[in-house]
């Protein structure tokens, strides 16, 4: 009795808060928690039933871990895992450094109108689809009509078959990714910098601190929590490769596979003809479980050192 009245009282007391949380909670419920039940397909050999989707799931045969096998049985398993991890690692580290750098530079520009122009210019690539970016890259790298080769020939250098020379591609991919992502991420940091109390800088200036000292001792420490959170979130996605980047930009060139094949493209190539839903679900589940474990571990480590910066 006492418990129920406590429950209702609790609702009445917090009705505003609960109402505010409702849309977000519903969104997660519908688009994250309900679909999660579909993970069961990863352990089934999915066959269609005439009575619809749920009947198909229930009627399909259990196959245990069979659907996961294709991810681990071949030599390619090592290559795709390595590529995915290393590229994403590079994206996280370089993306962080460049974004923070850009944010600081933008915040220091005195002419605010110009700063806005730069910011928009950097922001723009984020909104382009990978297909478009792929063609941008092609206009530079095409061996017959590409700008890069024409410039190189003009300067008397040998032209390069860009789409079959794999040694250049780690750099090309990282460059293209950063070009597209840094502008967007720097906005997040820029917003945090704008939120820093100006009086701190004034006090530092009176004390005779140089620009560099101000950045080192005021901006960076105060950015620390948001940097940690952004990085933790990125680590959760470290097993997800950006399909568009690795498929569209190298134009799916076979000779480049050892440096461009990542988990997502591998799954796509392997299953696009057979269309086995069970196997693709298995791959997705594997990626999320590893991502989950990584987030929990890194969050645990962060919490050990600095409780305030941890996600939860």
């Amino acid at each position, binding site marked *: 009795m006492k418990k129920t009245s406590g429950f209702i009282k*609790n609702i009445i007391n*917090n009705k505003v808060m609960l109402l505010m949380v409702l849309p977000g909670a519903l969104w997660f419920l519908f688009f994250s928690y309900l679909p999660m039940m579909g993970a069961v397909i990863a352990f089934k050999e*999915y066959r269609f*039933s005439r009575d619809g989707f749920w*009947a198909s799931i229930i009627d399909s045969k259990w196959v245990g871990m069979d659907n996961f096998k294709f991810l681990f049985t071949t030599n390619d398993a090592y290559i795709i895992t390595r590529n995915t991890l290393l590229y994403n690692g590079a994206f996280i580290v370089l993306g962080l450094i460049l974004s923070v750098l850009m944010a600081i530079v933008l915040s220091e520009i005195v002419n605010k109108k110009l700063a806005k122009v730069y910011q928009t210019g950097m922001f723009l690539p984020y909104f382009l689809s990978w297909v478009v970016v792929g063609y941008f890259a092609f206009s530079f790298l095409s061996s017959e009509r590409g700008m890069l080769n024409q410039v190189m020939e003009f300067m008397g250098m040998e032209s390069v078959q860009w789409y079959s020379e794999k040694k250049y591609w780690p750099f090309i991919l990282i460059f293209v990714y950063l070009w597209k992502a840094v502008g967007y991420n720097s906005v997040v940091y820029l917003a945090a910098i704008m939120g820093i109390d100006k009086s701190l800088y004034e006090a530092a200036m009176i004390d005779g601190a140089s620009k560099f000292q101000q950045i080192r001792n005021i901006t960076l420490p105060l950015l620390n929590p948001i940097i940690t959170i952004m990085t933790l979130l990125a680590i959760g996605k470290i097993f997800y490769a950006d399909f568009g980047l690795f498929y569209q930009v190298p134009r799916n060139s076979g000779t480049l596979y050892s440096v461009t094949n990542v988990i997502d493209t591998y799954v796509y190539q392997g*299953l696009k003809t057979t269309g086995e839903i069970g196997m693709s679900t298995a791959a997705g589940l594997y990626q999320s479980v590893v991502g989950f474990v990584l987030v929990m571990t890194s969050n645990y480590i962060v919490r050990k050192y600095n409780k305030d910066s941890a996600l939860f």
Partner: protein
Amino acid sequence: MGKKRKRFSLLLTSLMAFSLALTACGGGSNNAATGTGTNTGSSGNGAASEKPVELIWYTIGGPQKDLDKVMEEVNKYTKEKINVTVKMNMIDFGDYTQKMQVKVASGEPMDILFTSSWAFDYVQNARKGAFMELDSLLNEYGKGVVDTIDPAFLEGSKVDGHNYAVPANKELPAQEVWRFNKELLDKYKLDISGVKTMESLEPLLKTIKENEPGITPYAMVKDFMPILPFDYIIEKMPMAVYMDTKDYKIVNILESPELKSSLETVRKYYKAGYISPEVATTTSVDDLYKSSNWFMDRAATQPMADNLWSASYGYPVVSTPAGEPYIYNWSVMGSMQAISANSEYPEKAMEFLNLLNTDPVLRNMIDSGIEGVHYEKTGENTMKNLPESKNYDMPTFSLGNIMINYLNEGDPENKWEEFKKFNESGVNAPLLGFNFDTSKVTNEIAAVQNVKEEFWAPLMTGTVDPEEYLPKAIEKFKAAGLDAIIAEAQTQIDAWKAENNK
């Protein structure tokens, strides 16, 4: 802390209660919907005066502006004939396979759907249970289909002894031809009568390369593969039997001398600059066709194809055979309409398909639109497109029997006779009627598919040196499990051979 936790648990409980209520609702309305569905279904079958049945039809091709307008007319006609109306949904060529995979897997309501060997794979989806088995429906409601279309189509499209779709009556065998840009042939007075093999092209390509620097001598795309005397277990996978096989033994074509010598020729052409250096990533050469900056290529033909090509490019194109006309599994299954396994009106769907494949009025309406708006008749069996036809331009081959279509202006009168002759000229490929069941080797297929993507295009187009890369490819295919797939396929072929007394 304690307070915080309490609040959190409150949130969780309210969420849970809410989700329960929601799922209950969802389930309820679902049941209700299917309930009424079956009701109208059974009553619809009862009497023709009842409300007409609406069939949901998914087919391939770019959505057309006047689709609804035409369907309105079609529905008037079909309602009167068989008490059926159709709701046609078109999905563009590039998206069809993926979108249909999702739609079928999630059980979206549909009655009729396009399937083939090259888009929304027929055999695999039949095995997964996407389509309704049609054997008895064909006998009962599809007599017209059985009588009209070439029996080889129905026979060749059986999966494990059953029909799951109605094939379109069209060209039956597949034959490859070398196509030439006639303007260039005439300019340099080149003779194509001696051309047959890849090797015999060399002098022609050389002339063009030396005299026409702006022209791509051989317009090749990354899908290219030399013509080899093999019938493949799975298209573009390196396992096949010889065309003249007697024992049906599967060979790894990468180890065959035929492939090796062909690849050396392609490599020679690539190095000589007859092929674009970017061929291994080129998916389309439409720009070359449009600008007529090409000299030759290879394509699949059909009767009177030269006229078609010349008309669509706007300049003359001629061709000469590059191979024999063979009837393959994939050529038989080039275009089919299946009835969905979850169709509520399979009988009506079959009646509709029957009418579509036998009734010239319906067939031409669906293909060319409304008479007087999109086309006009110029004779008993001939028609002319009107300007409005650009708003209703359908892929003819995908919709059904093409041999009851009215002839276009400029088509020779004996067009369909030529098709029939071509169909009779076809020789059965050894594996016609055998469909590999991949369900036991899905893991290996996924791995092999990746190896294929890595090596196929560079090797086949001559981008890399076969001397160096062929052994590498063979090794990697083996490591990915090609031998296991071959062994499984061999077991199935042996069983099939014994069953069919081959």
